[in-house]
Every structure is written in C-alpha cells, then in structure tokens.
C-alpha cells in the first residue's frame, strides 16, 4: 500500500442492532475519520489509532455483511463496508497502523531496510521529479555499483525537506482594484448591478479607510451589512453621475450616505502623518504634493469635468489621479493577512488593529533614521583604514589564468626554456652598455619613433586579442566550449562527469578502510571507476578530428581525478598487504 490513506463508503453502527448512518470512512496512518452524508447528523468520528486496541471483521465466506469491528476501551466502532474487497483493504490498513503503533517502528520494506511507506513515496517522488537524479540512480543502483542506502545517504538534505511546502508567497492585491469596486450598469434598463465578494470587500476597505471605519461603526449596530453596501454603492453611483446637486440632496437626507460622499478624512490624516515622517531636506520623494486631497485642481475629475468645483458643494470631488495614487499605494503595501477568514467583521477589526500597530514602529524607525542622518558626510573625518580592505577576487579568474599553464603541460612543449649563456666578461658587458648609452646621447630619438605599419599592427593585435580570447576559450556568457561539441558527445560527457563525481564521493569517503564492509565497497567502486576511465578514453578517441583537441582538453582533468583515485587505491592496497605480510611473518 503506497498511499498513506484509505477512503471508503461505509455505514457507522454504534451497536450490532443499529441500522447505521451512511457516510464516508477515511483511514490515515494516525487516525480514523468518519463523516456522515447528512450534514445535520452528529455522528462524526475522529479517533486516534492509538486508542484502538483490537480489530475484527466478518469472514468473506459467511453470509454476514462486511463489517469491520474496531475495539477500544469504551466499546466498539462497527463499520459496515460496501463490499468484501473494500473490507479487505481496510482491514490490511488497520492492521498495519495498529502494528506500527504497537511496535513503534515501521513495517519492514522489500529492500531489507527499515523504510516507512512515506519515505519510500518521497524517494519515488524525488526521482520522478528530477530526471537527472533518476538517470544517475538507474545507472548506479540498478547496475549494482552502489546500494540504495548509500545512494540516499548523501542526499539527506533532499529527503528531509518538508513535503508539504506551503506557498511562502502571499497573493497581493490585484492591480485593477478601482474597476472591481465599481458597480456595473446595464445601459438599457435603469438598474445598476454590482457583485460583491469578500475579496472585493477587502479591496474596498484597503482603498478607502473611511469606508472601513464606517463599516466598523455602523454594522451591525445601525444597519445590516446588506444595507451598508447598498448605501455605499448608491453613493458611488451618485459620484459617477455628473449630478452634484442630486448628490448633495441625498447627502442631506441620509447621514450615513453622507459619510461616503465626504472627503476621506482618514486618508487625509494618514497622508499628513506621512509627510511629517519624511525629512524634507534629505528625502526628495515625499513632499506636500502627497497630501493630494487638498489639491482640488490637480488632474481630471472622476466624472470627466475639468472645472473647479463651486465652494458650496463640499462633497468629495475625487480625481482620477488621487484614486490611482491610492490604489498604487495599497497594492504596493500588500496584504497584511490572508483573506481566508469567513467572518467579515472580524477581518475588518483585525485590519484596523494592524494598522495601529504599525504606526508605533514607524515612529521608532523615523527616530532612528533622524539620528543616523545627523552625521553629515562632509563634516566627518576621513576614515583612514590602517589596513588594505579584503579583496575577494572572483575565483573564476584564477582558473582562467591557470588555463594557459594547463594547456602547456598538455602539449608537452616547453617554449624556449633554455637560458642564453653570456660569454662576455663583466668588463665587456659593461662596456657594451656604455656604448649604447653614448650612442643614444649623440643620435637622439629617431623620427618617427615607431614606423606606421608596425604601429597599426600593434594596435590591431591588441584589440583583436581582447575580443578573440573570449570566444576561443568559451568565456562568453551565452556560449561555452561544450556547445561547440555535438549534442550526443556533450550529453555523454556531462553524464559521465556526474556519475564519476558520485562514485568518487563514495570512494574517498570510504577511506581509511576499517571494516570489511568498506573493503568490499571500495573494491566495487574501483571496478566501476576503471570502467568509467575506459569509457572516457573511448570518447576521446572517437571524437571528430576537428573536435579532438577540445574534447581531450575537457576529458583530461576528468581522467586525472579518476587516475588519482586509482593510484591511491593501489598504494593503499600495497601498504595493507605489506602490513598483513609482516604480521603473518611474525605469527
């Protein structure tokens, strides 16, 4: 049974005479759940397997219906299952669960190791997800080079990772909030429809804190939620019409409606606080312009008109700019909590609370920032470092610079290592030098100093050198030496490399050899290493003639590491044999 749970239809009977309630029985490794089909029934069950002491079931051959009887200290749970095969499945599962609880260890798996089904499942899942890992696993374990346990021993980190990785990211607000929170009007009839989901409610609360406050104040004390939203959307509709007079009239009638039509005071307060927080001498971002509610002539009005309003209608004349700014600020701030909660009122309250809490932090931060800002750089003393700062170079540079040395040893050519011997005596040598100096004193500097052909050759050489060395050695970020090779060779080389890395890891970790187990393992690994070596040799030889040099350059270090391993094996074996001989000699 590779899955961790069993779900079957069953009837739950409290006693043998009970007709039983229909429902669904779910068995997991730890617990047993029963949920009746009828939601109003209260026959729900949730039982830990630890409390189950025994299990019995009716036999298949008998005429009785398939019953599973789980005994616990107070009585029995009897489940009538749909059929006998179902019963068998449940019985098996219960048996395993109970035996695990009793003995406290997982039931033994096929490979002779103590593996729980969950772990097995995790391994299979990891192998399925990563095809490279699967290939490596197949090559090494299936052909017997490494055992399963050894393979997974080095990958503990993968196995330990929590399976149920919760999504760490929180989904933020949508960027089209303004449009969501507007009612849609049907052009033909006089009706205006709007749809409201908890998501949209959250958005409205985030965008308009005054509405949020009103919600907390009015609902459920003064009106129901439905009424509240009706009034809100009525206010929105009035905004969207060009009729300021009608809006004023309605506001005068209904004081709650007026709340929605007024300026958003809370926003004003917040923006004023924000402006205060900023140090205007040093932070150029925020300035008086942020307090946009008090700049009525800024931007286009929501209802399309451009003229400045009359003073008597003190109603909220929001502009598109203000709405967009507000939406932008809210989207960037993000959500403070998951909107999975069901009860709308509690959500609103929690949001309010979090907003107050963050204010205190902001004050503290502001104070810190001010104390830091008072140190103006120009007035500071020069921080003279008595030590040269640590220079951490890019390690790739080192390896690149060593490439020339590596190529040199590969080609076995020592370019001009012979030293010229000087046969002159010291007097002659010095005399020669003095003659040169007096020559230049008399002649002066030649004109032209460098002939134009040579100069242009030098120029071309220097500039070419800069650009070509990149492509030759594959230092271009888009290209590497491997891309020059044909695909099959490239794949083969990469596979062999990964494989040999794995083998070498196990090989080197088995030294020093202390047990006979390690000895057999090392022998096994040595055979596979020699196999790998010959495979690499084959690749080198079979490469196409124009690729041969590059391939041998790549294969060479791979063979070198395998060589080192084989040498070490031989040396160690000889040492151990010598020791054994000596001991035998004495005995």
């Amino acid at each position, binding site marked *: 049974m590779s899955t961790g749970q069993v779900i079957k239809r069953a009837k739950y009977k409290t006693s043998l005479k009970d007709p039983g309630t229909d429902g669904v029985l779910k068995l997991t490794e730890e617990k047993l759940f029963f949920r009746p089909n009828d939601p109003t029934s209260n026959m729900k069950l949730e039982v830990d397997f630890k409390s189950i002491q025994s299990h019995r079931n009716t036999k298949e051959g008998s005429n009785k219906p398939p019953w599973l009887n789980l005994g616990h200290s107070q009585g029995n749970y009897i489940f009538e299952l749909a059929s006998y095969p179902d019963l068998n499945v449940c019985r098996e599962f219960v048996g395993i669960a109970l035996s695990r609880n009793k003995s406290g260890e997982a039931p033994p798996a096929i490979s002779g190791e103590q593996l729980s089904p969950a772990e097995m499942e995790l391994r299979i899942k990891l192998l399925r997800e990563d095809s490279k890992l699967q290939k490596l696993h197949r090559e090494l374990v299936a052909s017997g080079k490494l055992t399963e346990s050894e393979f997974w021993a080095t990958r503990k980190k993968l196995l330990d990772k929590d399976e149920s990785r919760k999504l760490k990211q929180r989904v933020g607000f949508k960027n089209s909030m303004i449009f969501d929170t507007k009612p849609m009007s049907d052009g033909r009839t006089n009706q205006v429809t709007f749809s409201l989901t908890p998501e949209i409610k959250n958005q409205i609360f985030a965008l308009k804190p005054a509405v949020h406050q009103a919600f907390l104040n009015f609902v459920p004390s003064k009106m129901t939620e439905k009424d509240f939203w009706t009034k809100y959307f009525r206010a929105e509709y009035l905004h969207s019409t060009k009729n300021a007079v009608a809006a004023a009239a309605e506001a005068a009638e209904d004081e709650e409606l007026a709340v929605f039509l007024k300026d958003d005071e809370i926003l004003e307060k917040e923006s004023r606080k924000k402006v205060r927080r900023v140090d205007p001498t040093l932070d150029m971002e925020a300035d008086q312009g942020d307090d946009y509610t008090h700049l009525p002539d800024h931007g286009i009005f929501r209802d399309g008109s451009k003229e400045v309003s009359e003073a008597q209608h003190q109603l909220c004349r929001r502009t598109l700019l203000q709405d967009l700014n507000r939406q932008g600020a809210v989207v960037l701030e993000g959500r403070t909590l998951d909107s999975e909660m069901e009860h709308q009122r509690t959500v609103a309250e929690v949001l309010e609370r979090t907003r107050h809490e963050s204010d205190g932090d902001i004050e503290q931060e502001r104070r810190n920032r001010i104390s830091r800002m008072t140190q103006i750089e120009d007035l500071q003393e020069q921080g003279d470092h008595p030590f040269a700062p640590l220079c951490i170079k890019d390690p790739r540079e080192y390896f690149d610079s*060593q490439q020339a040395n590596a190529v040199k040893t590969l080609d076995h050519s020592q370019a001009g290592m012979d030293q010229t011997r000087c046969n002159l005596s010291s007097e002659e040598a010095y005399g020669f030098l003095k003659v040169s100096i007096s020559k230049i004193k008399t002649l002066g500097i030649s004109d032209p100093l460098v002939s134009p052909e040579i*100069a242009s050759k030098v120029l071309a050489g*220097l500039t070419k050198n800069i650009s070509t060395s990149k492509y030759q050695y594959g230092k271009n970020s888009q290209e590497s030496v491997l891309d020059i090779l044909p695909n099959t060779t490239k794949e083969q080389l990469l596979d062999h490399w990964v494989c040999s890395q794995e083998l070498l890891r196990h090989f080197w970790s088995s030294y020093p050899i202390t047990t006979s187990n390690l000895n057999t393992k090392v022998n096994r690994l040595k055979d596979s290493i020699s196999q790998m070596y010959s495979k690499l040799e084959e690749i080198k030889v079979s490469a196409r003639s124009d690729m041969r040099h590059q391939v041998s350059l790549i294969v060479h270090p791979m063979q070198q590491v395998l060589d080192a391993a084989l040498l070490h094996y031989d040396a160690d074996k000889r040492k151990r044999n010598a020791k054994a001989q000596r001991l035998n000699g004495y005995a």
Partner: protein
Amino acid sequence: MTSAPSKLYADDVSLLVVSLDTNPFFWSTFSFPFSEFISHVLAFFNSILLLSQLNQIVVIATGCNSCSYIYDSSSDSNHSSEAVGMPALYSNLLQKLEEFVAKDEQLGKAQTPGAIASSLLSGSLSMALCYIQRIFRSGPLHPQPRILCLQGSPDGPEQYVAVMNAIFSAQRSTVPIDSCFIGSNNSAFLQQASYITGGIYYRPPQLDGLFQYLSMVFATDLHSRAFLRLPKSVGVDFRASCFCHKQTIDMGYVCSVCLSIFCEHHQKCSTCGSVFGQSQSAANL
C-alpha cells in the same frame, strides 16, 4: 570640500615609479638593442608627463649589484645645457644613467662570468615602495602612485623571499605593480606581482613597436583603467622557491607557523624556529 588645491588634484593624477632593467649581461646578448629600448622608453616618459601637469615620474635603475634613483621629474635640478637633438630632461637622465652604470661596474668587479646574472628586482621594488611611502606621508593631496617594471633579465630564485615581501607590502598599500617584460620566457615573480597587486603583466610580442605598447597598455592612470579593457594575463606561474636552496619547486613542505617553504624534510623551521613533529604516516608504519 572643494577648495582650490583640491581642484588641481583630480582623480587621474599619477605618480609612476619605473624600475628600469640595466643588466649589462642581459642587454649585451639580447636581440633588441639597448639604445632603441631607451629611446622608446624616454618618449613614453615624455608622453606621461604631457598627460597632466601634475604627473610625476621617478626612474630607478636596476643593476646587477646595486640600484639607484636616476631621475625624478619633480625635482628642480633638471636643467642641463648639453642638449643636442633631445630635450633637457632626457639628457639629465642619460647622464645619471651613465654614472650609475660606471658605479655598478665598480661594485661588481668580483663577478664570475657564466649564466646571466639576475638584476636586483627586489632592491628596486623596495626603493620604489619607500619613495611612495614618503609621498603618502607628504600630505593629503598626492598623486596616485603605481610601479612599472621594465624588465628583461630572468628571475633570480634567491630573491624570492625579498620580492614576495615587497609584493605583499605593495598590496597592503594598494600600489599596483605593472610589468612590461621583454625577455624570452615569462617571469614568475612579475606575473605574481601583477596578479596579487592588481596590476597588468604584459609581454609585448613585437618589440619594434614598444612605444605603442607602452602608451596603450601602461600609460593610463588608475582611475581611468576602470573604463578600459586591458590585456588579461594568460597564466600566472605560482611556483615558489624553497627557502633552503633557493630553487624553484612545485611540491614541498610548508611550515604551518610562518608559511615558509622547504624542499625537503627539516627538523626545525629556519625562519621561525618552530620544531616540526613527526608526520602521521611515519608514525603509523
């Protein structure tokens, strides 16, 4: 603070301390004549001084037995009247160079002929660094110093320790060491010097255009180098010389206290005096 003096000292003012190789044994057997070499180098110095009014050049001659300062562009005694076909500053330099060569010969009377003696690179590097330190201490406004080694003679492994010490002190004072190597094989010391201090090591393939190489690669000041794509080193020979025999070695023993290198097993480190214990493998056998 933007006071008037600071405006004069821009980012790209440089002090170039040049270590000029005057090893007679090398120059007498080298294909490129010394006179041509000097003419390229003198033109290069002139162009450096033309780049900025505040640029400075100091030339140190590296001989077989001694080193000495032969030219300092900021000193006032640069007027010589024997100029025929060349400006005053050159003739002054050449005069001093002649005197230096004569003195060097005097010191080296006891030299036996044989392989090319190596020039005293460590000595000239040390002198360069001392001059630079004096400049550092002269005040807050000073040009950015760097060292340029115009070298041709091979490395002397006996100078390994001294050269490495000079390189590390250059690294500590953030003074880059550039090297223009003219000889036949690459010089391990200069490669390491440039690698460690962040300078450039370049071996010009064509010596006829030496002036061109010098002005393209080595003339820029440190600030402007950030905008240039200068030739990268093709490989650094990191081999060390052992402290006991002064021979270049690939594998050896290292004292764990002072990091001195030996080619064979010793009981005691000669640099720091710490006693070496027995090795593990020897104990097990």
